[in-house]
């Protein structure tokens, strides 16, 4: 049986998947060896997150919801690191809680450990657990926890323990971070770094303190409406939000002792090339479709 010769149009519409995946892996790998700084215009929602974090009073702690794990490290990890770096530079105490995934508290602790190593390397004081920050841990019920935090945060965290400076487990509410917190409004803000539905759960239930969010790109459009309506005081979305925060940090803290550019600067140029590849693939598929149609019409006539 004679082999049917495929036209260029047909070939363009059916590029083999392994070829496409190989090109994609090359496009997302090689540029990472050659980092290029990109110009950036910060979005207003990212600006508002930055303004919130850089203007909140230093004597009030921040409550952080850390609902992300390594599966979204590319986006959530970068956003979380930027936020923690800002808080550390301003000597603001913070407490971290999780309602989405039991792995999340450990992931957050690992990031803080890395940032502390970075601070030590730059001759800055490391952030001490118990004195400067505490991990409140994991809560199994997001809805009940959010209600409880809004109505009686001391009761919500009453059973949780954290190691103190000497390593002994003690109730988190006894820590210098939370000792003066009587209600959720005693936190200067609740900043939620999330890759899950806990964004909606928190918006629906926590109303007594300022709320800001750092979400993944896929959650951006659905969360943007809460920012536009004023329910969120700031919103950083995905890698763009991360790069926005890093750009603004570099402007505010230009000194060499500060690490400002991280995940955002590392991944943003590569993302552009990956998107360019996607656009080229769409164009190739459409050109192929029109070529095939034209050929079919010519044959018919």
């Amino acid at each position, binding site marked *: 049986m004679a082999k049917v010769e495929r036209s260029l149009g047909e070939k363009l519409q059916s590029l083999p*998947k*392994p070829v496409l*995946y190989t090109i994609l*892996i090359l496009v*997302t*790998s090689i540029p*990472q*060896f050659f980092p290029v700084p990109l110009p950036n215009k*910060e979005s*207003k929602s990212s*600006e*508002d997150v*930055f*303004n919130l974090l850089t203007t909140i009073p230093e004597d009030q702690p921040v409550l952080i919801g850390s609902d992300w794990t390594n*599966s*979204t*490290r*590319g*986006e959530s990890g970068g956003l979380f690191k930027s936020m923690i770096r800002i808080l550390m530079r301003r000597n603001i105490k913070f407490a971290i809680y999780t309602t989405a995934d*039991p*792995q999340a*508290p450990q992931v957050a602790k690992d990031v803080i450990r890395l940032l502390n190593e970075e601070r030590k390397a730059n001759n800055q004081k490391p952030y001490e657990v118990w004195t400067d920050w505490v991990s409140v*841990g*994991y*809560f*199994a019920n997001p809805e009940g926890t959010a*209600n409880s935090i809004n109505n009686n945060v001391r009761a919500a965290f009453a*059973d*949780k323990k954290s190691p103190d400076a000497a390593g*002994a*487990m*003690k*109730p988190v*509410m*006894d820590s210098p971070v939370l000792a003066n917190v009587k209600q959720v409004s005693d936190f200067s803000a609740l900043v939620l770094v999330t890759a899950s539905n806990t964004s*909606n759960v928190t*918006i*629906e*239930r926590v*109303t007594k303190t300022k709320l800001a969010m750092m979400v993944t*790109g*896929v959650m*951006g*459009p659905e969360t943007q409406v*809460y920012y*536009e*309506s*004023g*329910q969120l005081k700031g919103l950083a979305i*995905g890698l763009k939000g991360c790069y926005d925060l890093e750009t*603004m940090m570099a*402007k*505010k803290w230009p000194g060499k002792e500060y690490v400002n550019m991280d995940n955002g600067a*590392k*991944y943003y140029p*590569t*993302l552009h090339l*990956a*998107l360019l590849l*996607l656009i080229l693939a769409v164009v190739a598929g459409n050109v192929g479709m029109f070529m095939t149609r034209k050929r079919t019409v010519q044959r018919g006539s």
Partner: protein
Amino acid sequence: MDPELLLKIKMGVGVLATVGLYSVLYRENKFYRFWEHMFLGLAAGWAIVALWTESLHDDWYVKIVGNAPEAGSTAPTTPGYWAYVLLLPIGIMGYFVFSRKHNWLSRIPIGIILGLWSGQQVQVWFNRYGPQMADSIKPILPTTSSFFRPGTVGMSPTDAAAANSQVYVSDAITNIIFLITLLSAVSYFLFSVEMKNKFLKNMTVLGRMLLMVGFGAIFGSTVMMRFTLLIDRMYFIFIEFLKNGLFGGT
């Protein structure tokens, strides 16, 4: 063991797991299955331990047996409340969903959860959508001749609030687009009235097209996020593990 070597071994396992999980893109294979089951097992094991240590132990078990605070703590001594033990049979009833004869028992905990959930819904709904409905009333006339909103980074909170209180020309245009989008998208969902009027018909068509634009934006964000996750994995393999780990010595 040398901590640096241990770190490299751990990262090497991470690289194998990453390559194994991505190998499904070529075809279903045993290498992929192995790492998939490894990941599921680890996640499930971690979740079970975390549920006990971070949730059930402190929020349930300690409440049954009571709590004597450690030396130096200001927390009061709390007596044990045996009634918390009643939560266990209620929870176990949920598993009777697998029994044909006694599955009615599973409806009791489901009913309790539904009741608690339903009781919150009025307030929850309003907290979520109330401010959005109020914010739908937007100014469409500018209050300043400046076209764009200025950047507020570095401004004092008062100056930033003053800058944000103005309706710039670009804001007014955005608000007009918002208003048209809102009305046309809502009109698309008016199924109980037959759209005979030409204007209303065109509104619903416009609503459908704008909804598609919205879905397109959501799809675009999704693609960007997936690319970022892939870029992060490639960074882990090529930069963190190979360049900095194996060949960089850090």
